[in-house]
């Protein structure tokens, strides 16, 4: 990036018009456009005529990035009367305490498969009634096609987040985040999560509900691999998430024609990443709501949902997160343990784009259980318990102002 370009990008980022991370080295706007086409593209099953497009599956959750992140936005979680989930937009992550996946099902419960192969199961949820009467959502998959899950396997139902502006999360210097953590009062202090990369080195986790991926590239690569069954340079196995126990799946046709090839070449991956990085931060709706913003800060929400984070290029990421893990208590905990992360720990969810989620009724929180801002706050326990109590103690006018403010983001 030339100095002038960098300055321009930063200026626009400051104005909130465009993500500063949009200019990926060596790629131009047409590449970004190609990235968009690849993001929207429904991949097909091998062997198809379109060699570069095939290799989907054998097991998969969706054919396109866009099916879970519709219009780059958040996926909806719709629960039908019988408890099964309709549509795409959520995944069921599986894992054991040592970090491995289920011995048979792997790290995802894939709900779709190429013709001739049976999908792993159907996503469904049950309600767990808490002592105080609130109903927590619990993943309860049905029609498990390859036998029972391992007793040690934990489950985590996760919504596909809004991607707009999220490229900026990569641009926030680690030191700035550490400073924010240090400045947080003891009772709400979050922590940075460091994840181990395939090469053994450590990096700051920034993406996903539990900050388990360090970069857009790693996150996208995992999505191609786990959710669509397409191999990438970071995940070269062509069979995606089929385990050794799933023989027919491993033996199914795939899109690799020569040793060392992957289904999604680096040249494609970088363009998809450049596209995601180019998505501008969603702009708050309506006119500025100073009162709501003030109440938001006074209630302690802004401690975690930081309205703006600094970026390395001198801009700001107005996403309403601190990128830190916070323990929100047992009400939000699920049964999946990732090494080094407690079941109740979550990355502060960025609130930018929430107006769109509310409009489309996607559901809020990691598993889509809350239907409104107030309901989402109601689930804030643990380190956010103080903020929740402050919220619930607000007079009607202040509370309305706060809800209107958050709902406009």
């Amino acid at each position, binding site marked *: 990036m030339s100095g002038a*370009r960098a300055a*321009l*990008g930063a200026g*626009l980022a400051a104005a909130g018009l*465009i993500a500063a991370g*949009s*200019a990926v080295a060596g790629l*131009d*706007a*047409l*590449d*970004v*456009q*190609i990235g*968009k*086409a*690849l993001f*929207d*593209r*429904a991949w*097909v*099953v091998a*062997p*198809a*005529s*379109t*060699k*570069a*497009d095939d290799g989907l599956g*054998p097991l998969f959750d*969706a*054919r*396109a990035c*866009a*099916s879970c992140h*519709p*219009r*780059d936005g958040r996926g909806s979680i719709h629960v039908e009367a019988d408890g*099964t989930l309709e*549509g*795409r937009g959520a995944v069921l992550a599986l894992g054991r305490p040592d970090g491995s996946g289920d011995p048979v099902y792997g790290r995802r419960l894939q*709900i*779709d498969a*190429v*013709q*001739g*192969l049976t*999908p792993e199961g*159907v996503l469904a949820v049950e309600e767990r009634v808490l002592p105080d009467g609130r109903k927590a959502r619990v993943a309860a998959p049905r*029609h498990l096609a390859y036998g029972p899950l391992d007793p040690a396997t934990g489950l985590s139902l996760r919504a596909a987040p809004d991607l707009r502006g999220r490229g900026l999360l990569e641009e926030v210097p680690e030191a700035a985040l550490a400073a924010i953590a240090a400045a947080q009062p003891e009772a709400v202090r979050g922590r940075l999560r460091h994840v181990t990369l395939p090469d053994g080195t450590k990096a700051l986790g920034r993406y996903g509900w539990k900050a388990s991926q360090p970069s857009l590239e790693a996150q996208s690569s995992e999505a191609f691999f786990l959710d669509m069954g397409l191999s990438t340079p970071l995940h070269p196995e062509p069979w995606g998430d089929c385990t050794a126990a799933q023989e027919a799946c491993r033996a*199914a*046709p795939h899109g690799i024609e020569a040793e060392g090839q992957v289904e999604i*070449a680096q*040249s*494609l991956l970088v363009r998809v990443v450049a596209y995601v990085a*180019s998505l*501008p931060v969603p702009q708050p709706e309506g006119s500025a709501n100073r009162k709501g913003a003030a109440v938001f800060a006074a209630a302690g929400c802004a401690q975690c949902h930081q309205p703006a984070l600094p970026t390395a290029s001198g801009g700001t990421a107005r996403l309403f997160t601190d990128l830190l893990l916070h323990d929100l208590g047992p009400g939000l905990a699920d049964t999946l343990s990732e090494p080094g992360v407690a079941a109740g720990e979550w990355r502060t969810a960025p609130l930018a784009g929430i107006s769109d989620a509310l409009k489309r009724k996607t559901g809020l929180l990691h598993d889509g259980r809350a239907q409104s801002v107030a309901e989402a706050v109601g689930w804030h326990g643990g380190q956010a318990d103080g903020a929740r109590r402050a919220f619930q103690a607000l007079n009607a006018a202040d509370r309305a102002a706060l809800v209107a403010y958050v709902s406009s983001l």
Partner: protein
Amino acid sequence: MRAPFAAAAIAFAVGLSGPAFAQAPASAPAKPAASAQPAASAKPAAAPKARDVVLHYANQAQAMYTNSYQAAVAMQTAINAFLAAPSAETHQAAKAAWKKARDPYQITEGFRFGNSIVDEWEGNVNAWPLDEGLIDYLDKSRPQSSDENPLYAANVIASKTIRIGKKTVDVSKITPQLLHQLNSAAGVEANVASGWHAIEFLLWGKDLHGTERGAGERPWTDYDLKACTGGNCDRRAQYLKVATDTLVADLKEMADDWGPKGSARAALLKKKDKAALAVIFTGIGSLSYGELAGERMKLGLLLHDPEEEQDCFSDNTHNSHYYDEVGIQDIYYGRFTKIDGSTMSGPSVADLVRAADPKVADEIDAKMAAALAAIKVIKDTADSGEMFYDMMLAEGNAKGNQMIQNGVDALVAQAHAIERGVAVLKLQIKVEGSDSLDNPDAAKKK
């Protein structure tokens, strides 16, 4: 299938008072346009009314889709004749009819972006890439495929049911509803089962030649009920018939959508003048830039993938690209030639640009002429039999790669020129992909 343009289109505001425009003398005499654009050069510099331009655009859309529909009806007649009496000759005639009907469709593609009704409909008609394994057998000679492998046998033509996610779909009766359902059963989830490329695949079969010479070589006997090759000839024939009927009906629907009481026309005419003009530019700008230059041409070049070409079974891509460009210009200049040779023309956005800033109008004329010329090189090279589009894409084919790159560059330049046209009319548009994305000054500079 692609997400509707409006969703992910990147909004940017034009209306820049860049130096390029500031310098243009307001009173410059209208220069005659390049000879390739007789419609433009014939026009005086006085601007037509914006409303008249919009109305003419709607009329032209109706006429162009009607034209495409009529061409498809001729194809349908040929396909019905083939199915009634399969032979090498009737098969050949059906394939020729597909190619002939394809061009009149391609010239309508500039209507797609900007008009959400068209964009939503497009998935049933022209979606790409095609999951042809869902429709029919692929390649029985492919080494790792065995006839026992159930994954190769599971296709609509050979099966009674197909599973999509948790739903099992009954495909025992092939109907237009079924094909649409397969396309849209679960949004982007579904496979592409209908439209131009499904028919193309059913007529030609998979092109097994890679980047070598040759198109798909499906034998006509795949439709011979007496000595059937490939199995299930009756189902295949039924599929081809239904897919063809469905396409014809879909084209008729779009022609009607632009008719006097049509929803696409109504949606456009409801808009204020500037917003309606913006739709016109959005369509041609998006097709020129993100769609044709980006997804359809540069991506293929990047991958050197022989089948990263739209009309991959028939090796007709050179024509589909060329007629896309013809359509862009037809819409810009407000004129077009019907399959019966008659022409139509009327007030256009080109007239508005010329009246507002002749210099910018000249530039657009020049860039459009250059884009058409660059793609014509590709078309002529393919038509002459020297090399087809899939061969041009091949890694190491410097000459072919360069031809495609020249096409990409010319289309990008054309898109930038169109952006300047937008700017002189002080419109706000959403173009799919544009330098303005990460460098809003780009439109001013070039």
